[in-house]
């Protein structure tokens, strides 16, 4: 006779199944992994070897931004849309009807997002090193920075993705509602364009949102220390970045808890 399974075992099993489903949904997998690479190649070609400052070229600047926005794409956009569709199809309701602890469901989602983001970041870094003259940071400090920026980013994005999934009225509407939010942030947070070259009011708005700080944190890891002089306040502002990202984790956690619904609107 079996006994009641542990939360850890169930969380890991959920994560494994989410990964299996992701790999089998080939279209989605190819889209998610190729999207940032296409942007890298495209914008890299358009803005070519333009040097921004301190020997940093635009493609190198873009690479750091794409790593940051890849986290938001996976955790916030893809996850938010996927959960909205799961809710619409009754998948969530079905899970709610089983003894599966909600924490195992959410934990599985977070681990799945971590897995996808890690693969995506690895692909981008490999591209940067191979084609765009990015050199990997040496020493422990930059990698520690990378680790906390990455983890805060993934956690916050995932929680916000869970929260935003309740916003669209149906699974079909999810993409139309969630995608523009991410696009807006990508254009105004120093991903596709150099942050300091944007109009001031756009910069100000972007500073309230996580992507700007994620991108800036990633630049501190992959761009030379000197380049900090070219940032808005002549610093990578890692402390401020950590505070803003942590604040969004808290906001995301509260929003996810308050707004999450297992069932479609009106189904209660």
């Amino acid at each position, binding site marked *: *006779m*079996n006994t*009641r399974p542990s939360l850890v075992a*169930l969380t890991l099993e959920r994560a494994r199944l989410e990964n299996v489903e992701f790999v089998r949904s080939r279209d989605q997998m190819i889209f998610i992994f190729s999207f940032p690479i296409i942007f890298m190649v495209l914008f890299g070609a358009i803005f070519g070897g333009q040097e921004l400052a301190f020997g940093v070229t635009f493609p190198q600047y873009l690479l750091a931004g794409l790593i940051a926005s890849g986290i938001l794409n996976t955790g916030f956009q893809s996850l938010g849309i996927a959960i909205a569709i799961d809710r619409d199809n009754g998948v969530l*309701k079905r899970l709610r*009807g089983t*003894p599966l602890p909600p924490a195992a469901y959410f934990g599985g989602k977070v681990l799945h997002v971590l897995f996808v983001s890690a693969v995506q970041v690895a692909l981008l870094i490999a591209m940067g090193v191979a084609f765009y003259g990015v050199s990997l940071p040496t020493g422990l400090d930059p990698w520690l920075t990378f680790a906390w920026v990455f983890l805060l980013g993934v956690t916050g994005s995932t929680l916000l993705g869970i929260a935003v999934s309740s916003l669209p009225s149906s699974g079909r509407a999810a993409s139309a509602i969630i995608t523009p939010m991410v696009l807006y942030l990508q254009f105004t947070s120093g991903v596709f364009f150099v942050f300091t070259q944007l109009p001031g009011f756009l910069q100000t708005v972007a500073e309230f949102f996580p992507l700007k700080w994620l991108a800036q944190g990633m630049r501190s890891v992959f761009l030379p220390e000197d380049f900090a002089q070219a940032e808005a306040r002549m610093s990578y502002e890692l402390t401020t970045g950590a505070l803003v990202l942590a604040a969004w984790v808290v906001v995301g956690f509260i929003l996810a808890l308050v707004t999450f619904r297992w069932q479609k609107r009106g*189904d209660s």
Partner: protein
Amino acid sequence: MGNAIEVAELVKTYGELHAVNGLDLEIEEGHIFALLGPNGAGKSTTVEILEGFRKRTSGHVSVLGADPEKAGRAWREKLGIVLQSTAVSSLLTVRESVTHMAHLYPHPREVDEVIDAVGLTEKADAKAMSMSGGQQRRLEVALAVVGRPELVFLDEPTTGFDPDVRRAFWKLIRSIKDDGSTIVLTTHYLDEADYLADKVAIIAQGAKVAEDTPAGLRGRAGEAVVRWRDASGAHEKRTTTPTAFARTLLAKHKGEVPDLEISRPSLEDVYLDLTDLRTEEDS
């Protein structure tokens, strides 16, 4: 045997609409209990209240000794649920899905046995997404029973099935009952309730209009119908004494009575009478 489910004066309103309007139910352990009624009668609303998916407006509900609105994981471990009109369209295979579900329960059934019981052994390694609607529905039943539930809810499980698939499905439901589970079934198919249920409650406009065994319900309308034809056209006579009536009819006719037919009311006639009556009373 005790009762698996007890419901008293259950009310569920949506604004002005009384979806469930003072329903009482007692469902005995080990029975197949059918909630029968037309679309919109409040069957699914009732079942989803029993499953803990919907909150009731008022009334008393006890499912396996607990209030579904407050029950937790231990209660869910004793339940198997097949929701209305959903299908498992996952990229996981049948075996992966059933195995995962088995892991959620403390005393699950053998995975391969369950897959075999629902007739999906040949599809065990197929992705649910690639299967037919009927096969997906059977997978849902497998997912609902693999945890060895004491109580199984089946909400319109055979809607949209081919007749032969429905027959096979009914046998499956019977076998689940034989394993000791209580089954609550909602359906708008009379033959389904007739074939499967130990007891049937007929629901119309949110309230119970009758509750009996299928045979008892059939016996309710005591009148038989005699139909025949003569020179003036077709006739129909409802009577509690069809034999006596037929005798006089035969005496009046020389030779064959054209189109003579004597029929006992079917469950359908009783059902239509009961659900009709209700509509008239309310209007």
